[in-house]
């Protein structure tokens, strides 16, 4: 956990032991204590832009909230907060902690600085975003992008599935169909020039080891061929002796590989365990291009943007499915979850001839207002097409989130659609209406009341024909209906 720790380094220098656990046992009692202390157990700060500075042009403000936290958030019990005791070098001032918030959360940039102050700031931004995200009750999905030609939404695929939740060291990595979210090698399209050169030097240093691996690979290949040949000829398989690879054979194999870009590309990707990039059709490939194997990354989007910098779930939600139902006391189990309020951050409009969609914030996550795919949007919520300063508290409307994904660079991507009027009615929430408009459509709620509310245990047509549920319905029918609805979804 502390590879860069100088303290650890010092201990391992004084005790030249190969095993770190042995070092932990034999180190001084104070060193053991320090290693177990909570302050030292704080993880090191993450690098914000890990490995792909060239992949995308960024224009961000220095004061903006980071797309993901890079330092741990710290809280302290209330009894200690009274004296400003956070377990750090010195007590933190109440003015910027306990006087500002009832439950202050801080992140520490430096335990002590030259100016004799502890450099800290409030960590409420990410902490509250996480809390708000967890209130949405969304499972994380693997990233997938819906085409504009397709009107369907992307499928939910949990990153926690056994065949997807793998790294190079996972147990099930050798099973057929197993995919992984991380390779040991870097994502070459995301490397900068300097990083690539550094990586090349590292590979050059490892050349003997790589040649040994390649030789093993060659031997396995020869053995397989020999075995297959023996099987075809009807020879005794047990009597087969393993093929001995001579240096001459190996040199010959290397020459063959060098002359065949297709085979060499595959061998290199396999040896260095590199994630392969976008799949390119073979006919587009020149004959002298090095071929890359098909991707084994768990999501196709990772081969475009690179493997994820975190676990694909980002650790912000551990549920596998969205099988969570709200049972309304009056209207029964609901198809949609409780709508969340979206704040219009930027209205939709045109700039230099290009039109852009509105940008809204849901639970601290900014996203584009998804709907509709048509050109005209007559039922757009108030304040989305133009800025209206008269709306108290700014323009907001209700949306139903349906997908949450973690992008390769650690940003949360949330997919929502506008909450339907019946859903809003069932949960007792209303979009903002102008006062004069609200006066004319006073009977809106009574109109909604007459219309049926979509239930989870009814198919759409059933619920339309039957607005009120019969009290004594056979339970078999309910179960059958439920199964039918679930299979349709």
């Amino acid at each position, binding site marked *: 956990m502390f590879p860069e*720790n*100088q*303290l650890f380094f*010092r201990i391992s220098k004084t005790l030249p032991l190969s095993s770190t656990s042995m070092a932990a046992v034999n180190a*001084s*009692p*104070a*060193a053991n*204590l*320090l290693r177990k*202390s909570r*302050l*030292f157990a704080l993880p090191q700060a993450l690098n914000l832009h890990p490995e792909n500075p060239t992949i995308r042009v960024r224009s961000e403000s220095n004061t903006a909230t980071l797309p993901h936290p890079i330092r741990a958030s710290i809280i302290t*019990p209330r*009894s*200690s907060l*009274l*004296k*400003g*005791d956070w*377990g*750090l*070098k*010195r*007590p933190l001032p109440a003015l910027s902690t306990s006087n500002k918030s009832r439950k202050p959360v801080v992140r520490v940039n*430096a*335990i*002590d*600085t*030259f100016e*004799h102050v502890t450099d800290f700031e409030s960590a409420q931004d990410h902490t509250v975003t996480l809390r708000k995200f967890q209130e949405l009750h969304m499972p994380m999905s693997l990233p997938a992008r819906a085409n504009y030609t397709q009107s369907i939404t992307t499928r939910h695929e949990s990153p926690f599935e056994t065949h997807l939740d793998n790294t190079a060291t996972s147990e099930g990595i050798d099973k057929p169909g197993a995919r992984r979210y991380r390779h040991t090698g870097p994502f070459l399209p995301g490397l900068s020039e300097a990083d690539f050169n550094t990586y090349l030097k590292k590979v050059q240093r490892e050349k003997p080891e790589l040649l040994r691996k390649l030789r093993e690979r060659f031997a396995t290949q020869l053995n397989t061929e020999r075995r297959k040949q023996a099987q075809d000829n009807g020879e005794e398989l047990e009597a087969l002796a393993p093929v001995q690879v001579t240096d001459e054979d190996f040199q010959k194999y290397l020459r063959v590989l060098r002359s065949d870009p297709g085979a060499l590309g595959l061998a290199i990707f396999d040896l260095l365990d590199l994630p392969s990039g976008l799949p390119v059709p073979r006919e587009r490939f020149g004959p002298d291009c090095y071929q890359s194997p098909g991707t084994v990354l768990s999501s196709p989007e990772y081969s475009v943007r690179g493997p994820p910098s975190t676990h694909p779930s980002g650790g912000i939600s551990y549920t596998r499915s969205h099988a969570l139902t709200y049972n309304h*006391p*009056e209207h029964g189990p609901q198809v949609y979850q409780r709508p969340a309020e979206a704040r219009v951050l930027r209205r939709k409009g045109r700039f230099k001839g290009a039109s852009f969609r509105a940008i809204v914030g849901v639970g601290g996550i900014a996203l584009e207002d998804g709907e509709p795919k048509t050109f005209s949007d007559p039922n757009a919520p108030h304040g989305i097409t133009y800025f209206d300063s008269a709306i108290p508290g700014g323009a907001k409307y209700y949306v139903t989130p349906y997908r949450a994904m973690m992008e390769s660079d650690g940003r949360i991507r949330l997919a929502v659609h506008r909450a339907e009027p019946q859903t809003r009615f069932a949960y007792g929430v209303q979009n903002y209406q102008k006062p004069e408009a609200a006066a004319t459509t006073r009977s809106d709620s009574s109109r909604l009341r007459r219309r049926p509310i979509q239930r989870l245990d009814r198919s759409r047509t059933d619920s339309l024909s039957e607005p009120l549920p019969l009290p004594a319905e056979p339970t078999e029918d309910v179960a059958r209906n439920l199964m039918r609805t679930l299979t349709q979804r």
Partner: protein
Amino acid sequence: MIVRQLYSRQGRQLLSVNRQASILRRFQSTETQTPTTTVETAVKVETEEPVIPVPTESALDNSTSSDSIRLAATEAFSRQRQNVKNFKKLGSVVRNKYWPDALIENPPLPSQITLELLLANQTHLGHSTSRWNPSNSQYIFGIRDGIHIISLELTAAYLRRAAKVVEEVAALGGLILFVGTRQGQKHAVVRAAELTGGYHVFDRWIPGSLTNGNEILGSCDRKVVNAFDEELPEWAERLESRGSLKPDLVVCLNPLESTVLLHECGLNNVPTIGIIDTDADSTKVTYPIPANDDSLRSVSLIAGVLGRAGEAGQRRRFESAKRGVLGYRSVSLGKKDVAERPESEDAA
């Protein structure tokens, strides 16, 4: 004007008159139908408590009904007391609760110093590496996150040594002065001085209090006490000729800001104990304790341990005084054979 006052007075009385509260409109709503559930489990209906009539003016007039009211009220009161008695035994008791002031109010003994205790109280956190004083290199264990880490073992060893110094000085009847002028250190400084039977400065060390003591502390009260700390008023006139008192040991909790104090102590041959962080000069004090001097918990722990040591020393002094053994030369005034031990009332 008078009329308006009258009106306002009447209006206030009208407000206090008991009236039936207006029923909220939403309770009259018939739009939402409350689903009625039939519960099959029989619920035991409680027998109604005897209703105690509220004493009204008319009831007070009637003497017979007043007796019955008083009786009922007494019964209800005794029943309530009985209930309190019965239910007091129920519930849970919270034990081992963290109490932040425990370190100051009930500090550990010098024999109870452990590395875990020091670690938990943040004594190991030094200053930024760019702030270090190379004279502290022997106390530094390593570097972590840009700060120096002070060796816990050395802190424990030096703290035990300082505790011994405080105990011996207290056992010989010396005057011990605790100085901690940083914000938040007041409580710890006062408590340590209280345990030691010594003196404290928590706001500001007046420069010259030692080198120019007659001018600065000349007007302060002084008294002469015997071996059992009882005042001897007959010595009062002798005090006039004596100069101001000087401490026999100074415990400085923030040597970085107390340069003047430490310099004066050096000039007057007063031994000093100081908490030396990695940016302080350890040669400024006689007995350094390498530890974190910024954390209030660290300072409270060190002051508390020294206070406990001083307390043990004072106990030893009283015990030996009972046996007639004194840690200092006894002085007699005329025919009375008493020990002299001057004490000063702290002016700060």
